């Protein structure tokens, strides 16, 4: 048996629907035969009648509805058709779901699935990585699973958590990543994972960039350079301890993210490591992000816009030379 990242997401939802009657799925076309834009809910409407609901094209109201349902005992999973469309729901997510617990002491257990990240030909409005916007605001958990296993266990965990969870699933990984089987349990939420051990350099990353970083690490390994790759798993909470421990071992930090370069996760990681672990660093920290333009449509441009194993490896070499 072999299961993809996308199938893991579908399986997690099936399990949740099966085992928890509070769960329902809510999004555009999720209940149709198509099963959402990426078929992440394919077949679920049939298997769980009345619990996989199509919505109008109304991202604000979709999340607003989910909030209201969550306040009344449900555990809605909202599917955004693309992460990019969550810009329409941003107010409900940040200002309603994100503030609710602190204001009222009543938590809002919604899970918002954001199919994000670039794939070739998707262009400026179907490629975005929005984790940094959601992580910037208080009151939200922001998950960025990078493996099939995490895609599965973290989605299950997301629904169990009483707070609103932004679950950033990467479209590029949907079909590219496969696993043999799905685990019962993953690491605890908020704990980063050492995806690869190495002594020369720490690469801190998440989501699809974990794969690129692992490829870069292999390339570097062939040159005798051993990179440690830390997969953050959640960018909020961000597991500073694991990152610091790794930097303590390697003395060098490279942060890799796919979103835009100003601010965001890579800046946050560098700020934390340099603030809390300045003395651990033997060289200036380095980061790679996407370029500071909209995400291009053309594959040639797209592959130059995002970090890749090649550019990561190149930066790593520079950093190791310092």
């Amino acid at each position: 048996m072999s299961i993809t990242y996308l199938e893991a997401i579908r399986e997690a939802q099936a399990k949740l629907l099966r085992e928890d009657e509070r769960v329902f799925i809510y999004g555009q076309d999720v209940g149709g035969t198509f099963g959402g834009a990426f078929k992440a809910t394919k077949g679920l409407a049939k298997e769980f009648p009345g619990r996989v609901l199509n919505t109008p094209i109304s991202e604000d109201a979709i999340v607003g509805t989910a909030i209201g349902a969550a306040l009344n005992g449900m555990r809605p999973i909202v599917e955004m058709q693309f992460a990019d469309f969550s810009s329409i729901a941003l107010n409900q997510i940040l200002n309603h779901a994100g503030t609710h617990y602190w204001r009222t002491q009543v938590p809002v257990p919604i899970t918002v699935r954001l199919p994000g990240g670039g794939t070739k030909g998707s262009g400026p409005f179907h490629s975005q990585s929005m984790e940094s916007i959601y992580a910037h605001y208080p009151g939200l958990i922001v998950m960025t699973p990078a493996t099939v296993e995490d895609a599965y266990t973290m989605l299950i965990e997301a629904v169990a958590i009483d707070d609103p969870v932004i679950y950033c699933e990467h479209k590029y990984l949907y079909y590219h990543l496969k696993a043999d089987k799905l685990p019962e349990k993953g690491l605890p939420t908020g704990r980063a994972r050492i995806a690869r051990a190495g002594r020369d350099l720490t690469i801190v990353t998440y989501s699809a960039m974990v794969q690129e970083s692992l490829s870069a690490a292999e390339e570097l390994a062939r040159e005798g350079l051993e990179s440690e790759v830390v997969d953050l798993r959640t960018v909020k909470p961000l597991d500073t301890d694991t990152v610091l421990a790794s930097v303590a071992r390697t003395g060098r930090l490279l942060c890799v993210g796919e979103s835009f370069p100003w601010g965001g996760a890579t800046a946050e990681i560098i700020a934390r490591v340099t603030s809390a672990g300045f003395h651990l660093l033997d060289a200036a920290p380095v980061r790679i992000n996407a370029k500071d333009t909209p995400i291009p449509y053309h594959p040639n441009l797209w592959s130059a816009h995002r970090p890749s194993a090649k550019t990561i490896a190149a930066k790593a070499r520079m950093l190791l030379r310092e």
Partner: protein
Amino acid sequence: MLQTAPRSKRTTAKKAPVHERFREAFRWMLLARTMEEKLVSLYRGGHITGGVYIGKGQEAISVACGLFLEKNDIFAPLIRDQAGRSAFGEPLVDVARTYLGSRLGPMRGRDGNIHRGRPSDNQLAMISHLGAMVSATVGALMAKRFKGEKKFVGLTAIGEGGMQTGSCHEGMNIAAVEQVPLVVVAFASHDLVERAIGYGFEGYSLDGTDLNACLDVIGSAVKRARAGRPPQLVVAAMLRLSGHGEHDDASYVTDEIKRQPFAQDCLKLAEKKIVDLELVDAETLRSWRDDAAAKVEEAITTAQQDPQPAGEKEDWCALHTRELLDQME
């Protein structure tokens, strides 16, 4: 499906039988007015931080919003819903505590003034962004349906300004898609009831200064929603008899507008009806007034003696799941 009941004019309303809950409603209106006058005087005296937003002139429609809901129904009040909130069951001390920033209020000083609620008691706590509460109410109703509850309704209020938001549009539309038992009550000086038909709502418009009409129309809209009719839109024409907040002297309201019938004070009209029709005697009326004043006094006094929050002691954790708090430093 549009039912544009002709605006019930006061003349006809006079002839209509007095609603059985008229007296009860009037008392909530009185309480709301008394409370808000007190808040305004506290504000003027510098005792309230931030704004004070009152519902003067809107008590008739607001009280009707709260009055017909049961404990298990969902109420998402808006800015000017003091009367409705009280009628629905909000303790008066919640108002005082929220305005005065008490640590013991429902918002514990974290949020203020009208941004309060007790979601666990089905009083949603509005966020400022207008329109946002419509879909939240829809969601609450969907949850009840999922859980197999029966005969519940949800009601939310919105101003005519708020009806122009995309959020309100999406929320109303989704209510129709889901056919939840929602009543949307719009406080509007224009007649926006035509929107009902476009959403597949049943729509009514009415004179928001006329308590009897408010009770009749909103009471029946709530009943219809409860009975499984499509979502209901009630548009009540009236004038806000104050500024947006107490920092706003409403000097932009012209004398001509103030002379319009919809600019009359619903509370005075209701009282006049009580007197004219001798619904209660003067003595009772006075006792109601005293009672309202006493309740307000008590709520304010309590809140004033409450502890205030303190930065050093505050629990700065925006998550219920404490162990997931990001350790930033």
